[in-house]
């Protein structure tokens, strides 16, 4: 194993590239992990207020967004299969679909945030100051967690755009698709984080 890898010292082979990506994903998990830890501590401290806070969130949009992200993960995985089967057109179409779904997610997310801002439910506002401490914390965590997640979606969108251009230019092809593979790993992580965020924020009973 190390023998063949050694001779390929100057190009990045698929095994090593994927391993590096997985290590990077571990760091992402620990980054979000810190926030989940704070969430766990705070929720155990204010169970009732967290429930009341979650009633303010729009479960319908949350569910819709979850479905959108799940589909986008599927289209991303499909594009990887397509490029491996040398179907450039299909791969490109699927990556662009993923991109459109990601943007749709952001539009709904933006609508939700905007609604909260209209209700003055944001940290530091006059309305917030009069809420119970646990609810202030809930909305603080809501904005921080969904905000950090949205930042990852935006980074993902940039990545997807680069991937789409490279597929078009054929520098990503059936022989060399490490970037596409790593981008989909990243995209699945972003999806996975949302799968945890959704019940933790929207579905508190």
């Amino acid at each position, binding site marked *: 194993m190390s023998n063949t890898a050694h001779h390929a010292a100057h190009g990045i082979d698929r095994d090593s590239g994927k391993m590096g990506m997985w290590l990077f994903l571990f*760091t992402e998990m620990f980054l979000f992990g810190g926030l989940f830890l704070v969430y766990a501590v705070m929720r155990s401290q204010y169970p009732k207020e967290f429930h009341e806070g979650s009633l303010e969130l729009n479960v319908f949009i949350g569910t819709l967004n979850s479905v959108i992200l799940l589909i986008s993960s599927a289209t991303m995985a499909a594009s990887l299969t397509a490029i491996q089967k040398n179907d450039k057109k299909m791969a490109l179409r699927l990556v662009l679909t993923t991109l459109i779904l990601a943007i749709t997610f952001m539009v709904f997310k933006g609508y939700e945030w905007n609604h909260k801002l209209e209700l003055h439910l944001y940290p530091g506002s006059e309305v917030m100051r009069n809420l119970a401490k646990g609810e202030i*914390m809930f909305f603080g965590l809501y904005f921080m967690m969904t905000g950090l997640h949205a930042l990852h979606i935006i980074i993902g969108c940039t990545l997807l755009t680069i991937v789409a251009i490279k597929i078009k230019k054929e520098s990503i092809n059936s022989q060399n698709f490490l970037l596409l593979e790593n981008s989909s790993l990243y995209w699945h992580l972003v999806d996975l984080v949302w799968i945890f965020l959704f019940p933790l924020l929207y579905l508190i009973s």
Partner: protein
Amino acid sequence: MDNVTTPSQENYLNHKTGLWSWLTTTDHKRIGLMYLYAIVIFFLSAAVLGLMMKVEKMVPGQTIMTAQTYNAMFTLHGIIMIFIVVVPGLSAVFGNFFLPILIGAKDVKFPKLNLLSFYVYIAGAILGLFSQFAGGHSPDTGWTFYVPYSTTASSNVVLALTAAFVLGFSSILTGLNFIVTIHKMRAPGMTWFRMPLFPWSLYATAWIQVLATPVIGITLLMVIAERVLHIGFFDPALGGDPVLYQHLFWIYSHPAVYVMILPAMGIVSEIFPTFSQKPIFGYGAIVVSSLAIALVGYFVWGHHMFTSGISYWSRWFFSFLTFIVAVPSAIKVFNWVSTMYGGSVDMKPPLLYAISFIFLFMIGGFTGLTLGSLAPNIQLHDTDFVVAHFHYIIFGGMGFAFFAAMHYWYPKIYGVMYSDRWAYIGWGVLFTGFNILYFPMFILGIQGMPRRYFDYLPEFKTTQMISSIGAVILFTGLIIMISNLIYHRRRGAIAPQNPWHGVTLEWMIPSPPPHENFDEVPTITEEPYTFHNPVTK
């Protein structure tokens, strides 16, 4: 074995020349050197800050700076020393330079990423400096950024936090690169247990960098969010909890201590066999204890918080684990000492530094156990005792290992020798100054001198004076040591390929190494540190 290298031979230093070839290099050796120069410059500036603080404290009352300046100085000293010098230090400099060579590879697995992490590091360092001079107050929170002060202080805390975040990112990228390199790039025949110990320690370190650094990242982001967006994670008035900050901070920052010390242990594990001409004693024990330290090191963070109001059982648990984590460190000490036993010991400067490492590290370790015990901790928490303890570990441990590595690998890196005589003199002054500076601080701490105080009561006068004199001696020692190395860079005698009669792979290639390290990929057939013809004096 001792082929003398002529300087005209092509090597990594003259392979390409010009500033641009350095700034765009992906050669792990050149990147290592760029880190070295950056780190030495930052180290010296932060050392000057330390010296100035000690001068201020030479006599009671205000002398050369105001209290506010003093606060800014210990903050800047801490931020530079921890985030810019000590955490990246050994991995980024000697790890970059020697990891690929020691495992028989041509470079790290991701050379471009390696260069990127250097520039991320430089960006973080510049941000850190910028926070000091960007107008307004310089940050005065201490390097620990404890809330609530860090969320309410009017100084440039956000910039300093961002700097620490960016530097953490660089640390993660280096760690990630090293893990993949060690997994995928070992030379044919180099099984895991034929790998030298410095790569092993870098491997354990890299895992900590990858798995612990993101936690400080998110914590710093939360402090920034609290300052900028008024999300009160750590503000009781908004439902938050200040103790939570301390948990999150130390979940990273305690393992970070092992990021500092594990590579240091790896370096002295290289030095002892070479200068004893004897295989390392207990190779397996050293490997396993490195991994054990990395693992258990995750679960001792609470010992920084015994006085912060955590429960009886958590105090019990964290104190117990603190004692447990001392065991693998002690195992290593026995291994190093046993390696010298019965060997042909050659007391060259690198070995002298390595032995002083053991001596200082043990004082630091034992006083660490004093602090890890619940009852003394109440008395000693946040006193000069703590400051003395971690300087013995970080400076006496990591710092002296850095100097040991510098003297050990200098002939390999530059292809020239330094003066042994001046190296001994520098060591003597440095070692004396170190103990005169820091040992009195243990006593001051026991007597109740709080850390980070600008002024003190008259009864501490004599001890403070002794400690400050030590600081001047220590600084003189640093200057002598570094001048010796800089002076001989151009004027030193040509170094042979293997001046110390070492048997690891770096001594099998010319000094300085060629651009791609090995002309032929080496094949490894035996355990490391096998001395077939030990050189006896």
